[in-house]
Structures are given as C-alpha cells and as structure tokens.
C-alpha cells in the first residue's frame, strides 16, 4: 500500500478523504459525499458550467486547459450521444497522484463524472484506467456497483428524471493512450494512435459523439469545487490558477510522497521544507518540475511559484506536477538517456519525426554515454530534438524533444565530459548503468 505523507502547509481538498476509508460508500456519504451532485441536479447545467469557469480549475493532466471552458465547448444539441471520458491512464514518469485518488476516493471520481455529464448533457461516462492499475480498477468497479445499488447511477439518479451510466475500462500498457484522441481510439478497441485535430473531442469524440475528456484528478476535484463554490476554490490558488494541486514528489528527497499544496506554492520550499530536502544532506543538481516531459530546471531556477503561468515563465512546464529531484551524484546524460529511451519505446510510430527522431536520439545519447561520440554529436542531438519539436501529430514528440533540448543546453559540460573515449565518468562503482529497454 503506498505510504501517505502529510505536511502542515498542505491544503487538503482533493486529498481530504485519503486514508479515511472513503472507498466504502457509507463512509464517503458520512464525509459529505454525493452532496455536490444533488446540488447540481437542482441547479442545472448552466449553473454548473458557470461555477466551473469561476473556479479557474485547469486540466490536471498536464496541458492546463480551463475545465469549465472545455465543458462549454460541447454543443447543446447533438444528433449523436455525448460522453464524459475520465483519463486515468496516468503514465507520465514521475506522476502517481491518480493512483491515490482511485485507491482512497473512488466515489469522488464517480461523483465528478456524473456532474460533468449533467453539465454537458451526457448520459454515459467512461472511466479508463491504465492496465497496470488492476487493483485500482477493482476498487473503482466495486464503487460503481455500490453507486448503482443506491440508485446514484442508472435510471433516474437520486430520484430525479436524469439517467446516467458509468462504464469502467482497462488499458493494457501504453503511454500514448494518455493522449486524449489516442485514448478514444483505445476505448473503441483499436491501436492507441492519435487522431488529427480539429475536430476536437468536444465536437467529434468517442464513437463520433461530442465528448468531454478530463484527467482523473480534474474530475475528482469537481465535487469539491461545487461544494466550496467556484469563487472560494479559485481563491485558494493564484490568478488564473484555481485551487490546489497534487504534487507527486520523487527522486532524491528525504520524504518523497504526494502532497496537496495550493497552486503557486514555492518550488524551493516544496523541495527543502515539505519534502525534507535532499537525501543524505547532498547538494541539488537539477529538478524536473512537472513529469518527465518538462524541461529540467537548475538549482538557481527553482525559486518560483508552482502554477502553470509561473513555471512556464521560468522556461519549463507545470505539466502533471510530478516533481523529480536530482542530486549532485547523478549523471545527467544517463538521466537524459533513460528519459529518451522511454519516449522511443512509447512512440506509437504513426508520424515520422517522433518515430524516427526519438529512436535516433536514443541511439545518439547511448553512444555518447558509452564514450564513443565526438563534439559535433552533441550539437546533432540538439538539432534532432529541435526538428521533432512542433512537427508531430500529438504532444509525444514535443514531450521527448523538450527535455532533451534542456538537458543539452543546461548541462552541456556534462555531455562534453563524456567525449573522452571512456565510459561514463560519473558512473558509481558497483552500480549498474542504464540498460536500454
């Protein structure tokens, strides 16, 4: 069972029911559950969307698109059925927050899904979990069955005229399926390959119907937004960045864990106070602030507020809020190699810059790390990455290129230290090196 952590600076909204047995429906009800959806049934769709807009809740999957605005794009009238799709494919390296939501608060996901359905006029919601999360899928399935048994799902939910069904779905191992259109392909029983946009999912999505797709954390936040009121939720965060964020802190810190902090919380404080500082009293070398696809930050760049706009201003991205902390004993080339190996493995192969580019980068960095490169190869790595950037159908290409460019730019000396014809100068004795998967 994943260890729960806490810190006095935390503002527990999404995580307030963690560790309290809320996976049981009785307990969820005791803790105020399913009150927000009842309120939404009374108030109607326009009110829900307005509250969501006021809340400044932005997509927790990584792109940070305002959720209320996304919902408002769905046409009111549609000849095809509309759908709500919950993205629980959580696969961005460094990110493990949805893991805890499914484990500790599955009914919040259900309640948020129903509210999204009421807002856009959908009668069916899908909750898609990555295949590795089987035990969490079982928890979700049990929660859905309990909600049906109580009349919270099915025909005439909560004694109203509205109908709503939820179907849970398992993936089977694919990072790319976390991309919204690839997820729809997967749910339709196909290879998880992205679709060309436009049309966007809000117009033509799952089974060709208008679809709202949100990250699991976004959906689990919705009942809290309704309960608190959009304005109160927005007030917790910073301008245009409402509420809190679940930060998955990993790597070389004393107290790794998932912490819920207000949007805009200082990154330096997050690492040195909340997560207890660098493990073993070592020095900090670098921080990846928002999951593996976000550009690395140097120690002098981390005195920033963790919201979408401030991290972007610092030249990186808040992404999935997976904060990966790297100490001074780490070889950045090895870290970059492991990062690009991942993207090369996960590229779906549909478009060429990503399929060929990620593989080429992997080969180039493998060779460099092993000590077989010349100075011009370092420029070449950057050149390849820059030519993937912006030239792919989906964000996977950018996700591979952006961190690679940042590693080369910010740690050029470390790349050059590998040019001496010998294996990695940063290798620790007795510690196996990255093998290429």
């Amino acid at each position, binding site marked *: 069972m*994943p*260890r729960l952590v806490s810190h006095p600076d935390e503002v527990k909204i999404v995580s307030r029911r963690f560790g309290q047995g809320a996976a049981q429906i009785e307990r969820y009800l005791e803790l105020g559950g399913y009150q927000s959806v009842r309120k939404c049934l009374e108030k109607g769709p326009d009110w829900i969307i307005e509250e969501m807009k006021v809340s400044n809740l932005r997509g927790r999957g990584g792109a940070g698109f305002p959720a209320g605005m996304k919902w408002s794009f769905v046409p009111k009238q549609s000849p095809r*059925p509309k759908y709500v799709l919950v993205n629980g494919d959580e*696969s*961005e*390296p*460094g*990110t*493990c927050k*949805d*893991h805890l939501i499914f484990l500790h608060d599955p009914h919040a996901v259900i309640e948020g899904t129903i509210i999204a359905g009421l807002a856009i006029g959908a009668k*069916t919601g899908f909750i898609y979990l*990555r*295949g*590795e999360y*089987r*035990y969490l899928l079982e928890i979700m399935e049990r929660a859905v069955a309990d909600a049906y048994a109580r009349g919270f799902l099915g025909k005439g939910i909560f004694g109203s005229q509205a109908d709503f069904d939820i*179907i849970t*779905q*398992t*993936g*089977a*191992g*694919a*990072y790319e399926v976390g991309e919204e259109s690839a997820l729809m392909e*997967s*749910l*339709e*029983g*196909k*290879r*998880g390959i992205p679709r060309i946009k436009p049309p966007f999912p809000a117009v033509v999505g799952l*089974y*060709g119907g208008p679809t709202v797709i949100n990250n699991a954390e976004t959906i689990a936040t919705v009942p809290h937004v309704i309960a608190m009121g959009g304005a109160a939720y927005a007030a917790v965060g910073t301008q245009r960045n409402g509420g809190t964020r679940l930060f*998955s802190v*990993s*790597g*070389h810190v004393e107290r*790794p*864990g*998932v912490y819920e902090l207000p949007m805009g919380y200082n990154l330096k404080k997050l690492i040195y106070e909340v997560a207890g500082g660098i493990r073993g009293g070592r020095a900090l070398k670098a921080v*990846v602030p928002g999951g*593996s696809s976000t550009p690395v930050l140097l120690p002098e760049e981390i005195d920033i507020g963790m919201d979408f706009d401030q991290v972007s201003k610092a030249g990186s991205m808040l992404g999935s809020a*997976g904060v*990966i*902390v*790297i*100490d001074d004993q*780490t070889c950045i080339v*090895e*870290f970059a190699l*492991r990062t690009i190996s*991942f993207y090369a*493995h996960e590229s*779906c192969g549909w478009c060429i810059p990503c399929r060929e580019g990620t593989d080429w980068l992997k080969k180039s960095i493998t060779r460099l790390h092993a000590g077989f490169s010349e100075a011009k190869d370092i420029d070449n790595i950057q050149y390849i990455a820059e030519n993937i950037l912006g030239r792919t159908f989906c964000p996977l290409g950018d996700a591979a290129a952006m961190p690679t460019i940042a590693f080369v730019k910010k740690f050029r000396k470390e790349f050059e230290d590998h040019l001496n014809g010998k294996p990695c100068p940063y290798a620790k004795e007795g*510690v*196996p090196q*990255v*093998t290429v*998967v």
Partner: protein
Amino acid sequence: MSAESMPIFSPQLASRLDALVQRYPVRRSALVPMLLYAQDEVGYLSDAVVAEVARRVGITELDVRSVASYYSMLRFKPAGRYNIQVCTNISCLLRGGNEIFDRFQQELGISHKGVTADGLFSLEEVECIGACSWAPAIQVNYDFHEELTPDLVPGLLDSYRSRARQSPPSELGAPGPDFETRETQDAKPPAPSDTEGSR
C-alpha cells in the same frame, strides 16, 4: 477452425467475456479488456485465444493481432506464473531501480523477458508503473511492491515460491497467469455474434 471443439476459457471467464461485449455502444470496445482478461487466465495470447477473441468480437484474427501488438502488457509468448516487472524509469532510476533489476537477474539467472526453467518466474524491465513517490517499485503480476532494496529481493521471491506451493497452477482462480491450457468441458461458447455495432 471450429471454436466449438476447443473451449479454452473457464466458465467464469467465458461468462465474464459474454457480459463484456454487451457493455459498450460498440462491441469492439471490449477487445482490449477481453485480451487482457484472457491472458490473465491462459498466460498469453495463444493462437487459440486470438481466434476465440476474434470470433467473440466479430472481427478478423489479423485485426486482433494488430491491436494486441500495440499494447506492451499483451504478449504472444508464455511468461512465468509470476511475471516480475521492474520499473527502471527516471524516478526509480534515481532510487536504485537498476540495482533491483540486477539483483533479480542474479537471483533468477534470467535477463529481460527471460523465463525460469521451472516456468515459475519471468523478468521484465518496464516503463513507469505509477508508483514514483514510493520508488523503487516493481509489480509481480498485478501486485505492487514499493520502496524495495536489493536485499529484500530474495525474501520476496521466497514468498512467491511458497504461494505457488500452496495453490497449484491447475486450480481455477490461482493467483496470476500460468500458461497451462485449462481443460474445461462445460464452457460452451455463445453462438457467433451478428455484426459489430454501428459507428
């Protein structure tokens, strides 16, 4: 080939799959979960499994293979009864994922995608499994094991060895995949379906 002559799924799985294809607006949506649940029982996607899933969904075997080959958890060869998946992605790398993988290789005498001679264990180096804050982490079939050290590896393997002794693989509902084909007589496959739902 006639599917009727070779029931390959247990009655429990057969009825689960019957329900699954009825669940979605489009029959084909059941494909990925069906393949994974079939693999959980049979151990891998054998030719017979592919044919049976194709028949149940109402698509060609080629189509089934095309989809299955995309997903990293689906396999066309048997794995061990306990498939050990060691994450070595960045968060685990920083906290010793490679050392964990190395120790498993030493203890089992197999490497990436290898299977032990007794068929009990297989080993895989995998991408991020979503346990980054509790790294280094592994999965044995679907069970997570977190905050590992190399020294914990032998004891973990022993716990699975004794679990295997307590529940022989032929017993239905045994934990994890085993790759012996089940011989169940009463699993009558349903009549071939009509067509895929409209799109």
